[in-house]
């Protein structure tokens, strides 16, 4: 995990070979982008028709969106896995049929917009991945794709509003008897676990217990009594008796209520054998 994080912060080379390419940045209405997201890869979603009425004037651009609702194939997420189809969900109101849009082109002005892409490729057999970062080009033209407000669009908006306003939970009348159970606090399965737990701990030889303790304290400096009981499997009074011999009990803030070895038994720096 930490190695992974280290890797995520590594400086990466940026591929700037495609930096000179000019791209368009297009603002797309939401219903279109939602449609496009559900499309299979490589689907043709529309057509741009650029016409120049006169030589000097700005070109008229019309964007015609195709009806892609039938073409919606299995949707792949960014990892190339097939996402669950959304057919179970209530269907969102979508535009049916092809439709023209205004395509208004504006200049970028003095904004310096650069497109960058990240391509994650997983190394097969390993858990890590490599990320290729490259500059995909510079925005040379900004455009906004405006829907033309006609009856169709109005209908779409109406549907959207209605869909938005339908409550998510509704009252349903039940005609059959519903089986309901009284809640039970203690199940039979719990019972078994309990009986196992009450198993009595017997006192072992002091030497052995101390060995276990020293081993434990080699790994960590501070222990709670409860944990030590779990580790040594000794009865609490007996364990405390031994602890008092070789350990100090912390009663103040940073390691409150924890035991640590007396200084004479400690060998943390050199990691020596404590016996």
């Amino acid at each position, binding site marked *: 995990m930490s190695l992974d994080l280290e890797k995520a912060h590594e400086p990466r080379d940026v591929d700037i070979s495609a930096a000179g390419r000019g791209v368009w940045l297009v603002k797309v209405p939401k219903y279109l982008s939602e449609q496009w997201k559900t499309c299979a890869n490589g689907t043709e979603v529309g057509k741009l028709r650029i016409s120049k009425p006169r030589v000097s004037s700005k070109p008229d651009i019309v964007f015609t969106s195709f009806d892609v609702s039938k073409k919606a194939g299995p949707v*792949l997420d960014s990892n190339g896995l097939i996402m669950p189809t959304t057919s179970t969900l209530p269907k969102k109101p979508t535009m049916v049929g092809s439709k023209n849009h205004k395509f208004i082109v504006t200049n970028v002005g003095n904004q310096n917009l650069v497109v960058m892409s990240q391509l994650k490729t997983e190394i097969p057999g390993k858990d890590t991945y490599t990320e290729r970062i490259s500059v995909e080009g510079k925005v040379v033209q900004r455009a906004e794709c405006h829907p033309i407000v006609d009856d169709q669009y109005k209908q779409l908006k109406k549907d959207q509003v209605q869909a938005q306003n339908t409550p998510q939970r509704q009252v349903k009348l039940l005609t059959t008897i519903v089986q309901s159970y009284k809640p039970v606090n203690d199940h039979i399965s719990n019972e078994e676990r309990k009986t196992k737990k009450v198993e009595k701990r017997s006192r072992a030889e002091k030497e052995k217990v101390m060995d276990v303790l020293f081993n434990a304290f080699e790994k960590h400096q501070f222990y709670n009594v409860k944990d030590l009981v779990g580790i040594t499997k000794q009865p609490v009074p007996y364990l405390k008796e031994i602890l008092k011999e070789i350990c100090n009990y912390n009663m103040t803030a940073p390691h409150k209520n924890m035991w640590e070895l007396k200084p004479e038994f400690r060998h943390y720096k050199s990691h020596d054998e404590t016996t």
Partner: protein
Amino acid sequence: MSSFQGSSSNANSMSIPQEEFIVRIPRDTRRKFTMMKMGTGSALDFAKLGDQPVKIERENNLKEYKTANDLDLVPKFGAGSEYGKDLKEESRRKKYGIMLKKYNPEDQPWHLKVGSGKSAKRYKGVREGTITENTSYYIFTKASDGAFEAFPVEEWYNFTPVVKYKYLNSEEAEEEYSRRDKTFNYFSIMVKKRLKKEDETLDEDEKDTKGKKKGKKAKDLILTDKDDWDDMEMSDDDDDSDADKDEDDDTNKNKKKKQKGGPKKVVKNSKKNSDDEAVEESDEGDFDDKEVDYMSDSGSSSSLSDLGEEDKDKKYDEKGVDQEAGLRNILDSDAEDEEEEGEKEEADEDMDDKDEKKEDKKKEDDSSSSSSEDDSDIEKDAKLASAIFLQGGKKEKKDKKDKLESSLTIASETKTEQRIPTPDKLKDKSIKRRAETPDGKTPSLKKHKTDDNEGITEDAIRRYLMRKPMTTKDLLQKFKSKKLNMTNEKITHVIAQLLKKINPEKKTINKKLYLSLKKPE
């Protein structure tokens, strides 16, 4: 815009040259597109970089994240580690419903580095959250077959150059702007700023060290309980004999009486008219009325039996002590006695010296006071004893108790003399005293004045240092515990000054600097 509303057939009918492009969703959607806003007027153009290396990395905020959430602050294994700490923390968080946000390196700002070495330009890209919330942007690129490919833009980053050079902050800029008409050389502004900065940093350094010192000293000056301090005092005074101590206590008691008498007397005087007062003062050797005033079991016989000249001084003395007493009325008397010991001893010595001198003058008129002080200790002691016993003999109305006490006083006197046995030193002292009192004024008056001002005298420090080696800390503690009406800084300052003057021997024991003075042989 009827032309837009018109269908394609309409456009065709106008027979205008037009091009058609297919827009499609790209085949490869694994690429994630990010918009880099380079800031207005930024000269960075990736196309013109040539073969300069461009590197990008995520800002590493892991440490900040961890410290902010108290994660991994203690080691997981070995010294300082707690068993099962992580699990416990997690369960604690769960219990209190704290949802910890996982650290995601993808959420960190970008660091873009263009070029290498020193000439590298650095940019920092911070994600802009608001743009993509309600709108969707697509990048249209031309594919090889002439069609447009639409890539969704997922994130927007605002890249700004990282400024490394110094610049005027808004306040400074404001200031400079306000005197822009007076500035001849605009190039010097930054230079001036740099110089100023350097000065400041120097000052700060000094301040830092000073602060550290101060801090250390402040730390050294631990407020101790009275008991603790008493203990310390006791241990300090171990080298003094018990008799001495008792004696000191007794003399102190006497003093105390006087102190107590002081304010009473003042009140009385204020009630009485001045004539009466004058009569009382002028009466030499007649202590009847005063004895009534100071009626007590121990009686301050020795001091009272002193000659009349001292009465005046005593009054001043009392006043001074009274003032002091007023300052520290919180303390109970014993502690006060202990604390004042040093000063008192001094005063005692003074008085004793005075007595001595007087007696000497009486006994042997030709011998000067200085010569008497030059005499050996034994001689002096003998003289002293004889003098006082003579005195006792003279005044037969004194009862036994007084005598006993006076003998005790002698003991103490001899003791103090032994402590500072050099005649040279005494001489020094006496000279100093004389210097202090050029026109016959008694030293105690002056002395007290200085005590009120400082409370820390060279003599006192000398005495302490001669007794045993001390650290400056100990010294501070000594004076601090006297509850002088001074700030810590002032005390340290005064002590430092005096130590410079004294220039004691320095010795490092256990990494602490001990100061000491040799007892002069």
